[in-house]
C-alpha cells in the first residue's frame, strides 16, 4: 500500500535510525538486527565448513598425518559447537526477528531493545569461542563435553570453561529472543488474525520459542554446574564426592533433544509458507500441520533418554523412550504428507525456493527414517556413537533445517533487498549442495554399519573403511563448492539482480503487502485479516485501519486469542543501553571463568547498566517528600 508522501515523511522521521556508526550501535530495527545475525551466522557456517573439510581430508586415508589427535579433536568440537550453538538456532531466531513483524503487519518486535541485546550477547558467545580458538584454548571434547573427561581432573586449563561460557552467552541470547518472539506473536497480531487464522510459520516460531524457554534453562544449569565443579570444587559430577556423571547427561539432553526440534520446527514453518505459495493453493491440512507442530513440541520433551540408551539405565525406561521416540515420527510424517498433498492438488511452480523444498523432503525423510532406526533402544546399541548416527544427525539437520533455510533465503531475499537472485546460479548451487551432501553423507550410514566409531582422528588400513571415506570427502567438497556459489549469487544479486517489486512470487501472507525492501516502519497501516491467506483475496483491495501515531514510534497491541485491538503502545527508540548492558554481561561471563568474585562484582555492574536501560524519561515529581514542589 502506498501511503501519501506526507505520511511517509512523518513515519520516516519517527522510525529512522541515527546515521553512521552510532546508528549501527544503537539501532533497534528488527530487520537490521536480523541482518547482522544472518551475516555473522553465515560467516560462522563457512568457518565450520572449512573445519569439516579439514577433518574429511584427514579421514580420506587411513593412518593419515594431516592432523594429529589434538588438532582433530579441536576441529570436531569447534565444528559441532559452532554449527549447533552459533549457527542453527541463531539463524532460526534471525529469520523470526526479520519475518515475524512483517508477517504480522506490525512495525517492530514487542521488545526492540531486547532484540538488540540478544545480538550483542550472541556475538559475545561467538567471540568467546573463536578468540579462545585463536588463543589456543580451543575446547576439544566435542559439543557435549561429558564429565569426568570435562571435569577438573581430566581437563585442567580453560578449554572446557570456554565451551561452557560460550553456551551461557548463546543461551541467554536465545532466551531473550524467545520471550521477544512469543510476546510479539501473542500480543501484536493484526486485527482479525485470530489464532485460527495465523499462518503456520507463526505457529512454528511460537512453539519453538516456548520450547526454548523451557529447555534452555537445563543447559544453563548444567554448564554452570560444570564450571562450578571446575572452578570452586563442587561435586555435582564426581562419583567420589557422591555426585553422578549421568546427571550431566540427563540435564544436557533434557535441553539437547528439544534443541534439535527448536531447529527443525521453524523449518517446517518455512516449508509451509513456500509450498503454499509455489503450489498456488492454500496449504492442505493446515490444522493437521499445526497440531503436528504442537505435538512434536510436546513430545520432544519426553525423548531425551534416547541419547543415553548405551548408558545402562533401567530397561523399563528404555522401553518407554523407544516408544516415545518412534511416536514422534507420526506427526512429522503427517506433515510431509500434507506438504506433498498441497503440491499434488495445486499447480506447482518449480522456482529455486520450491526446488529447495523438494530437496528437503527427499533428504530429511532419509534422516527421519534413520532416526526411527536409532529410536530402538536395542538397535541403537549398534548404531550410536558410530558414523551411522553422524549420518543421521547431518541428514536431519542439513536436510531438515538447512535446506528449508536456503529455500527461505531465496524466497524472502527479494523482500529484504528488492532484488531477485539468479535462478540459474541458484539451481547450480542447489545441485552442488544437495548432490554433494547426499554423496558425502549417505556412505556414512554404511561406514557406521561397518563398525567405524565417531570422533576418531584416524583408522587402520585393515578395516576397509578407506573407499567410502574418500567418497564422503569428495561429496563434502562438492557441497561446499555449491555453498560458495550460493553465497556468490546472494552477493552479486544484491547489486546486479533484477528488481523484484513488492510481491514477485505471489505470496499469500502479509509481508508481501509492503515494499521491497520494507521501509523502517514496515507498513503504513494496520492490515485487517479475514482468513489464512490475506494476500490472496482476488483483486479486492486490502482492508486496513489507520490511526496509529505517525509522529512517534507506536505499535498496536491486540488480544491473545482474538486479535481484537486493545491499546497503542509506545515502541522503544534507538538506544545504546543494549550494547552497554551486553558488554557488562560479557565481562561478567568471561571473568567468571577465572574467579567466582566476578559474579557479585559483575552483577553490580549489570545492575547499573540495566538501570540506565529502563530508567523512564519523565518529568520530575512535584509532590511527595522528594518532589520539587510548586
Amino acid at each position: 500500500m502506498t501511503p501519501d508522501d506526507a505520511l511517509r515523511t512523518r513515519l520516516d522521521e519517527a522510525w529512522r535510525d541515527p546515521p553512521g556508526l552510532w546508528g549501527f550501535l544503537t539501532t533497534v530495527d528488527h530487520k537490521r538486527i536480523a541482518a547482522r545475525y544472518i551475516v555473522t551466522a553465515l560467516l560462522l557456517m563457512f568457518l565450520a565448513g572449512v573445519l569439516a573439510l579439514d577433518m574429511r581430508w584427514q579421514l580420506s586415508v587411513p593412518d593419515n598425518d594431516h592432523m594429529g589427535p589434538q588438532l582433530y579433536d579441536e576441529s570436531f568440537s569447534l565444528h559441532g559447537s559452532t554449527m549447533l550453538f552459533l549457527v542453527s538456532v541463531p539463524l532460526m531466531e534471525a529469520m523470526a526477528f526479520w519475518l515475524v513483524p512483517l508477517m504480522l503487519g506490525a512495525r517492530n518486535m514487542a521488545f526492540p531493545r531486547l532484540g538488540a541485546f540478544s545480538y550483542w550477547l550472541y556475538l559475545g558467545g561467538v567471540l568467546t569461542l573463536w578468540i579462545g580458538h585463536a588463543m589456543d584454548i580451543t575446547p576439544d571434547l566435542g559439543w557435549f563435553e561429558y564429565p569426568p573427561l570435562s571435569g577438573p581432573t581430566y581437563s585442567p586449563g580453560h578449554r572446557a570453561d570456554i565451551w561452557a561460557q560460550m553456551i551461557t552467552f548463546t543461551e541467554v541470547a536465545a532466551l531473550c529472543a524467545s520471550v521477544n518472539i512469543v510476546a510479539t506473536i501473542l500480543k501484536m497480531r493484526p486485527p482479525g488474525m485470530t489464532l485460527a487464522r495465523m499462518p503456520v510459520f507463526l505457529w512454528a516460531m511460537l512453539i519453538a520459542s516456548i520450547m526454548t524457554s523451557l529447555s534452555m534453562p537445563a543447559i544453563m544449569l548444567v554448564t554452570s554446574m560444570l564450571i562450578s565443579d571446575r572452578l570452586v570444587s563442587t561435586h555435582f559430577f564426581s562419583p567420589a564426592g557422591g555426585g553422578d556423571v549421568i546427571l550431566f547427561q540427563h540435564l544436557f539432553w533434557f535441553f539437547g533433544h528439544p534443541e534439535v526440534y527448536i531447529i527443525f520446527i521453524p523449518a517446517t514453518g518455512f516449508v509451509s509458507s513456500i509450498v503454499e505459495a509455489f503450489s498456488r493453493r492454500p496449504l492442505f491440512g493446515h490444522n493437521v500441520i499445526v497440531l503436528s507442530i504442537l505435538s512434536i513440541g510436546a513430545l520432544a520433551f519426553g525423548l531425551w533418554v534416547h541419547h543415553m540408551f548405551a548408558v545402562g539405565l533401567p530397561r523399563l525406561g528404555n522401553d518407554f523412550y523407544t516408544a516415545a521416540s518412534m511416536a514422534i515420527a507420526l506427526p512429522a510424517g503427517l506433515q510431509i504428507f500434507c506438504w506433498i498433498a498441497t503440491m499434488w492438488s495445486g499447480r506447482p511452480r518449480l522456482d529455486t525456493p520450491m526446488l529447495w523444498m523438494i530437496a528437503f523432503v527427499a533428504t530429511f525423510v532419509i534422516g527421519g527414517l534413520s532416526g526411527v532406526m536409532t529410536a530402538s533402544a536395542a538397535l541403537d546399541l549398534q548404531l550410536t556413537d558410530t558414523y551411522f548416527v553422524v549420518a543421521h544427525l547431518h541428514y536431519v539437520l542439513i536436510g531438515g533445517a538447512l535446506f528449508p533455510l536456503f529455500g527461505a533465503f531465496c524466497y524472502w531475499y527479494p523482500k529484504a533487498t528488492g532484488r531477485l537472485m539468479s535462478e540459474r546460479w541458484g539451481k547450480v548451487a542447489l545441485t552442488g549442495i544437495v548432490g554433494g551432501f547426499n554423496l558425502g553423507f549417505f556412505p556414512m550410514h554404511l561406514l557406521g554399519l561397518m563398525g567405524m566409531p565417531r570422533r576418531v582422528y584416524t583408522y587402520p588400513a585393515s578395516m576397509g573403511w578407506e573407499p567410502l571415506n574418500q567418497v564422503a570427502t569428495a561429496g563434502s567438497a562438492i557441497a561446499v563448492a555449491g555453498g560458495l556459489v550460493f553465497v556468490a549469487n546472494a552477493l552479486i544479486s544484491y547489486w546486479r539482480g533484477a528488481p523484484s517489486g513488492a510481491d514477485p512470487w505471489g505470496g499469500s501472507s502479509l509481508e508481501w503487502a509492503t515494499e521491497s525492501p520494507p521501509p523502517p516502519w514496515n507498513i503504513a497501516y494496520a492490515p485487517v485479516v479475514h482468513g489464512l491467506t490475506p494476500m490472496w483475496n482476488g483483486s479486492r483491495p486490502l482492508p486496513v485501519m489507520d490511526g496509529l501515531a505517525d509522529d512517534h514510534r507506536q505499535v498496536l497491541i491486540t488480544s491473545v486469542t482474538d486479535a481484537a485491538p486493545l491499546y497503542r503502545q509506545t515502541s522503544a527508540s534507538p538506544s545504546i543501553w543494549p550494547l552497554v548492558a551486553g558488554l557488562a554481561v560479557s565481562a561478567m561471563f568471561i571473568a567468571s571463568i577465572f574467579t567466582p568474585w566476578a559474579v557479585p562484582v559483575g552483577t553490580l555492574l549489570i545492575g547499573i547498566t540495566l538501570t540506565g536501560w529502563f530508567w523512564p524519561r519523565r518529568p520530575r515529581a512535584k509532590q511527595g517528600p522528594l518532589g520539587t514542589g510548586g
Partner: protein
Amino acid sequence: MSGVPDIEIVGSLADLPTSATGARHLVWWGNIGFMLIEGTGFALAAASYLYIMTQAPAWPPRSDALPGLLWSGIFTGLLLLSELPALWVLRCAHAKDARGVRWGSLVMTVFGFALLVPRGFEFAHLGVLWHQDAYGSVVWLLLVLHTTHIVTELGESAVQTAWLFTHQIGDDQFADVDDNGNYWTFVVLIWLPLYALIYWAPRAV
C-alpha cells in the same frame, strides 16, 4: 504481482487508549515469560537435588550436619510477611495511587534489605560447605539460585522506589510496579518448595 496492493481504510485505531493494565499490557507477558524460564530453572535444580538424594546411601551424608531451622524459619517468616506490602503495592498500582506505590515500594525495599540478614545466617548454618560433597554442592546451588533472585528483586525495587519518589508517575510506570510486584510474589512462592527440600527432606528421609 509486483506493486504494493491497493488498500481500503475500513476503520481507525486512533480512539484506542495508549496504555493498559495487567494481562492486557504487553510487558506483562514478558514478565510471565521470564517467570517461566526461571521457574523451569528452579524445577530442574530441584530435580537434580532429588536425583542426587536417591543415589546417596544416607541423606545428609554421615559427615554432614542437618541444616539449621532457626534462621531459615526467620527468613521464611519474614519472606511471607514481605508479601503483604507487595500485595498492597499491587492494589495501589491497579488503582493508579501514586502515593501508595511510592511508600509501598519503599517498604518492599526495606524488607529486601532486611531479608539478606537471616539469609546470610542461613548460609552459615547449612551444616555443610559446597565443596565437601555432592549434597553440599546441591544444597548451596538451591540456596544461591534463590538468593540471586532476592538480590535482583531488591535491586529492582530499590531503583524503582528511587525513581517513583523523584518523578511523575505515568501509566507505563504503574505497569512496571505491577510487574515487579508479581515477580516478588513469584520469588516468595518459589521459596516454599525449595525450603521444603533443603530443610525438611533430610529430616524426612
